[in-house]
């Protein structure tokens, strides 16, 4: 049993876990603040990756500028999404919001398939073939960049949620909506920002991982289901719980994937979710329990 | 000495670090109409939510006719004989008024699921009886004309009447009315008052939670007063009216209370 093999798996797991966390935290933020499960969340991840691909392969942008542009576009898309669609739904129409975002996901996904076909594309960057080698462990530079981006995004999100007024307002609404509203928080402003941040995180995750795995219109589809499972495991509405569960899942999947067929590792998320529901329904960390 | 119909002992509820209800105890005798008043935030609605099972209590127990209700889910408490209305008036807007009432009656009448599907004569008999009682109650509250109308067309005051009628369908021992006259015009207030009298005359025990102090004082022979989660007074209206603690609790709202308008 090769130690470096394990370390390799662990590192890969951390990278994918961090990316899972970005997507799951965005989903959790939107759910916590608006009580909406954003079915189309994976599609913004996919669009982020597709846009990054397009910018770097067709427009010739470098990796970092492409990521920056994609994130900005994603945040803007989040605003548009809220204003155009989600804002007109009130908190109590949970089923309507799921169906609305499902419809959006159908439009985006199938539209992308129609326009771009399902052929996977590989995004090449200047760093694509570079690796960092420490002893027997080889890590591609792109993965390291993805990890770095993810951690940067974590830090930014933490700063927003814990050090700004509007971030506190978001946490307040996610924890106890009625109390927050009574205190005079403007739900629309908070919701708009939550959606913008959530979609932004999703797009950033897509752009970060675009050079690592293949890019194709259906990549968001399975991703988002895992994100759903993650937020249940972490605890509905608990943003940091989602992050922790995400990273843990990434590591678990990676390590298990070293020994089991890959798709079995894929099923881990759902098996874990079912186990959590049967044993500890409020999730590992419950709602609103901050770590 | 008979056991009181409702016994509440040491009811406690905490919310976000605040103690909304603090060791409240009281008893309600069968056949009485008891008022529950108090300034904003005194815990009235929380008590109702707790004893009807909609909010978990942090401490205390409550019994109906000697049967333990503590910790039961809302539908079990309803089947045990205590129903309630809601501050935010609730009705099934898409169902007819009669259907609204028949739903309220169906869980307690002993008809099982298979019988319900079987459409046998037993079921028909039970449904007919429920319908007849429903029409009766609609007549009592003055909504008989709308029996086949969808509940969504009713005015706010009419919805309150419907809610009271629905609360009566299953022949409960105890009905808790949560702000039955809030936001309602004076004519309707009088109508609701009459309805309550008639229901009480038929033997139903009522607890009425209200902001409208005048309404409570004229309707109830016994009034419980809450402040900041604690019971501060309990007795006939005359005594309550002159109780210095009650006056102090309503200080600043006293003038408003005397005019019969609760403050939101």
């Amino acid at each position, binding site marked *: 049993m090769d130690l470096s093999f394990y370390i390799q798996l662990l590192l890969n797991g951390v990278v994918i876990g961090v990316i899972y966390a970005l997507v799951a935290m965005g989903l959790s933020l939107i759910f916590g603040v608006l009580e909406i499960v954003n079915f189309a969340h994976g599609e913004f991840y996919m669009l982020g990756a597709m846009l990054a691909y397009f910018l770097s392969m067709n427009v010739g942008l470098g990796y970092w500028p492409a990521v920056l542009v994609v994130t900005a576009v994603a945040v803007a898309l989040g605003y548009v999404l809220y204003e155009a669609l989600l804002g007109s739904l009130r908190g109590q129409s949970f089923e309507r919001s799921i*169906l609305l975002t499902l419809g959006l996901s159908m439009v985006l996904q199938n539209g992308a398939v129609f326009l771009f076909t399902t052929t996977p594309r590989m995004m090449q960057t200047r760093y694509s073939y570079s690796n960092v080698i420490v002893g027997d462990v080889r890590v591609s530079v792109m993965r390291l960049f993805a990890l770095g981006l993810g951690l940067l995004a974590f830090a930014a999100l933490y700063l927003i949620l814990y050090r700004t007024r509007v971030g506190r307002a978001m946490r307040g609404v996610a924890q106890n909506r009625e109390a927050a509203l009574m205190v005079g928080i403007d739900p629309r402003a908070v919701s708009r920002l939550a959606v913008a941040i959530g979609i932004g995180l999703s797009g950033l995750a897509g752009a970060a991982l675009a050079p690592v795995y293949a890019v194709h219109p259906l990549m968001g589809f399975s991703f988002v289901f895992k994100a759903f499972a993650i937020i*249940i495991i972490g605890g509905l509405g608990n943003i940091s719980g989602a992050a922790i569960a995400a990273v843990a899942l990434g590591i678990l999947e990676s390590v298990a994937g070293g020994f089991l067929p890959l798709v079995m590792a894929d099923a881990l998320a759902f098996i874990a979710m079912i186990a959590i529901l049967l044993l500890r329904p409020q999730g590992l960390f419950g709602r609103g329990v901050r770590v | 000495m008979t056991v009181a119909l409702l016994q509440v002992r040491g009811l406690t509820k905490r919310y976000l670090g605040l103690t909304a209800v603090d060791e409240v105890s009281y008893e309600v005798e069968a056949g009485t109409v008891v008022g529950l008043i108090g300034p904003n935030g005194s815990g009235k609605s929380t008590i109702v939510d707790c004893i009807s099972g909609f909010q978990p209590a942090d401490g205390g127990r409550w019994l109906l006719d000697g049967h333990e209700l503590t910790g039961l889910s809302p539908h079990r408490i309803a089947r045990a004989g205590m129903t309630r209305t809601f501050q935010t008036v609730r009705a099934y807007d898409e169902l007819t008024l009669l259907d609204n009432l028949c739903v309220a009656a169906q869980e307690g009448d002993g008809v099982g699921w298979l019988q319900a599907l079987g459409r046998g004569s037993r079921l028909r008999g039970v449904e007919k009886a429920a319908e007849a009682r429903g029409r009766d109650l609609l007549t009592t509250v003055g909504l008989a004309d709308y029996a086949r109308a969808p509940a969504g067309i009713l005015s706010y005051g009419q919805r309150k009447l419907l809610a009271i009628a629905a609360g009566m369908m299953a022949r409960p021992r105890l009905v808790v009315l949560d702000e039955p006259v809030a936001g309602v015009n004076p004519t309707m207030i009088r109508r609701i008052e009459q309805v309550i009298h008639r229901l009480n005359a038929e033997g139903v025990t009522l607890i009425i939670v209200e902001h409208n102090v005048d309404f409570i004082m004229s309707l109830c022979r016994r009034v419980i007063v809450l402040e900041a989660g604690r019971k501060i007074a309990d007795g006939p209206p005359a005594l309550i009216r002159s109780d210095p603690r009650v006056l102090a609790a309503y200080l600043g709202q006293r003038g408003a209370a005397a005019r019969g308008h609760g403050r939101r």
Partner: protein
Amino acid sequence: MRGGWLRAFLVVLGVAALFAIPRVTGNEYVLALGVSFATFSVLSGGLNLVYGYTGLLSFAQVGFFGIGGYTAALLVTEQDWSLWAGAAAGGVLAALVGLVIGYSSLRLSRHAFAIVSLSFALLCLIVALEWVSLTRGAMGIPGLPVPTLSLPGGLRWRLGRPADFYYLLLGFAVVAHAVIYLVVTSRLGRAMRAIKLNEPLAQSQGVNPLSYKLLAIALSALLAGIVGGLFVFYLTIVDPSIFDFYYTETMLIMVIIGGPGSFWGVLGSSAVLSALPDLLRFTTDLRMVLYGAVLIAAMLLFPGGVGGWLQRRRLARWRRPGAVAP
């Protein structure tokens, strides 16, 4: 009650007409549409029961459908069961699974149930692909034999022609809808509607929301499982594509357009939408884009579908002055 008799007469006429179609035309294409309609109407009817009547958004129907298909296929090919028994077992298994996922997630919230039902459907797909020793993996179980059904009276019916499956699936669809109709027009259906319309009010009146929700889930799962068991024999193959999300999207559209909670609305829309795709000859992707757009528009503008629009007209009639009898 002339209205009731008229409606019953029309229904019988319609069903008789549907059964007569294979005698009028042997066109296999028409028969295939009929099978598709029968199957989808059962799926969307069950979804309507869970979502339209009880208010529980669920994505699990396709999971039950596929579980029924695989169970029937395996029992018939490996254990020599009859098709009746295999399909029935598929339905029962699906219902049990439905109860488990329903009970475990409804304790938490209906949000959790929606998410779990979704993950359940995806998990089914993964299991079908990966548990090769059970499900044969991506290849599935092809070459399902032509079933022979034992009918009362000692008759044996060999389902060799497309028309046979047409009769079988249509017949089951009629039975399934009769059962659904029986439930929704009874006090059980009334309780489900009460739960959807105002759950706290229903609770305060003694209605136990969990038991009715589980009933709706179990019944819809049972019907979906049985129709799945029959459907795979029509296809003569069961493979992981039976869990395709496409089925879920189509069922949802049928329920949304027909009107959640409207028995006839959903039945009608499932008929129209079964025939439509081939009439319009869109590619699947564009059709899905269109469905997605319809979903968005429906949620923003007319969440009640056709049935809801009819309901609002009924309401408006009551609101007109003089509508109330003195």
